[in-house]
């Protein structure tokens, strides 16, 4: 079975229900040489992300059906983190009191509208820099950065479990659910991967394109 590697990062996904704003954001980013895709709701965003190839998501929190609450945006953010995507999420929102929820959910950066073009491009550049350096860490030194939120005062076992789950999830996602490759990357045997998948119920959580088959 051929080895799978992380697809080359090639694009930015702009998620905003406002068509006009999506268009101008895309134009702004494209004028800087970025490849941009657009999504107007959570489902479209997930469809794009499952196809892979994004380094960055520019996310508005107010998405349908509840455009006037941040629920859908936070839900998508949680999904992205849970899926273990190695991309950076910049939240671009009109609400100022959602920073805590976004950063807790794993957003890389947080901007409040209206931002200037310079601020937006600066944030995008920073995010891409971090993304590229994390990719380099992984490829050159086999070091993977993971982000977890852990409660303190409950011992260290939950911390270990969360880190283990996050890492396994990310590697499985990166290898497109290739058990052999995942085992190789993690320095484990296949049986260990199956055990961890069962332990953290990863079969059901991970959503991959239906035409992709796991390699066993």
């Amino acid at each position, binding site marked *: 079975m051929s080895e799978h590697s992380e697809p080359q990062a090639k694009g930015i996904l702009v998620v905003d229900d406002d068509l*006009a704003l999506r268009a101008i954001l895309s134009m702004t980013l494209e004028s800087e040489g970025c490849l941009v895709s657009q999504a107007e709701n959570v489902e479209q965003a997930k469809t794009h992300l499952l196809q892979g190839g994004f380094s960055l998501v520019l996310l508005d929190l107010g998405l349908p059906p509840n455009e006037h609450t941040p629920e859908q945006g936070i839900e998508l953010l949680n999904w992205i983190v849970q899926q273990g995507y190695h991309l950076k999420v910049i939240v671009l929102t009109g609400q100022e009191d959602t920073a805590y929820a976004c950063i807790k959910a794993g957003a890389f950066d947080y901007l409040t509208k209206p931002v200037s073009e310079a601020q937006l491009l600066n944030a995008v550049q920073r995010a891409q820099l971090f993304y590229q350096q994390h990719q380099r860490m992984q490829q050159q030194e086999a070091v993977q950065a993971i982000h977890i939120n852990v409660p303190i005062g409950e011992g260290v076992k939950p911390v270990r479990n969360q880190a283990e789950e996050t890492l396994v999830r990310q590697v499985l996602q990166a290898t497109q659910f290739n058990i052999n490759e995942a085992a190789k990357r993690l320095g484990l045997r296949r049986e260990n991967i199956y055990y961890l998948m069962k332990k953290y119920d990863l079969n059901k959580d991970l959503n991959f394109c239906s035409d992709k088959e796991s390699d066993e």
Partner: protein
Amino acid sequence: MSLVDQQLIIDLSWFMVLLPLVIGLGLFSVLVYLAHRSRQFTHSLEQLYRLNQTLDQDVLSFIEQAWPILSKHHSLALHAQVDWYGEHMQIHKGAPSNDLNPSSAQIIHIQQPDVELHLALYRDRVRGEQRLITEVLQKTFLQLVEHNISIKINQVFLTQQRIEKFQLFAQHDLKNLMQFISLLNDQLRRVDSPEQCDKLIRLLQSSVPIVQQRAQRTLQQLKTTLSGHDKYEYIDFPTWLEELAQSLDVHLVLSGEAGGVYSRSLLKEVFVNLFNNFRDHGCATEPIKLQCRHVNQGESEDSDLIEIIIYQRQPGLQQNELSSVRLFEPFWTTSESGLGLGLFLTRELLGQMNARIALLDAQQRRQLDELESEQLFGFVIQLPA
């Protein structure tokens, strides 16, 4: 054995038979009595809970209507002082306060924004299980009152939060517009080739109609929320109210003259609420009458008032069922479809202008119509002149 001895034995035998019988009957009676008291107590507790549910945890109605249940179990009096969303009232049930022993009272005092309640429940002089039953019943009643107040406060608080959130997201639309314009401006500055120009024009062709719609919607929202910053202008009340009534298809009979400098949009909202209240709860066949006049309160012009009386004849009206405490209470309505916010908001809006609104009292109603004063329902509004 002599006859006397035989008689004694017979008497003793009867005594030995009757004694346990009497004791048994006595015990049985006590048990029956206690069982009966217990059933009464349980029944009264159930009545309290059912009453509270039937009244939808309405605080004031529950305090009023629970008294018959409490008084059946040696509650001597209930005295309450209530400050309810700006309206004051006192509730007195049972014995007058000078006949009461303060040491026999169970008291609760609740102080929250907009709501303050001081309630004392007095007990009759009873002992034993009767005292216990009375105390438990009173404690249950007081706990239900506290619980109901907490629900009411939460209800108002949650709705206020929702309204604030809605306002925040109205600002969100505005920020989206500003973001679009800001980035468009940057793109316009960059255009330096026909291809870029074409691309920008195509973007504008698809985006501007959407932006225009959003701007219109945002402007509409801002118009209704900017009442605090609205400009003040002179309003001639008879003329202005006549026009307003016509635009709302309200049959209004005007008298008197008065005018002053006020916020037109605030006043419009006040009178629209009032007209809607008459439309929803008044008499469809009777006109709404309105009198306005200038009231000189003292030597200084600053204390002068504009007084507007708005009222309607409503046949079949039960004056004793009207209470300004309930009418101005938020989320209290007799209408199935209404929110119960109209009069509450009216009073809040008038408060912003240092104005007041009150239900017409008996004397004011008699001044309006001596013969049919009991059929009149309305309000008196006092605005600073």
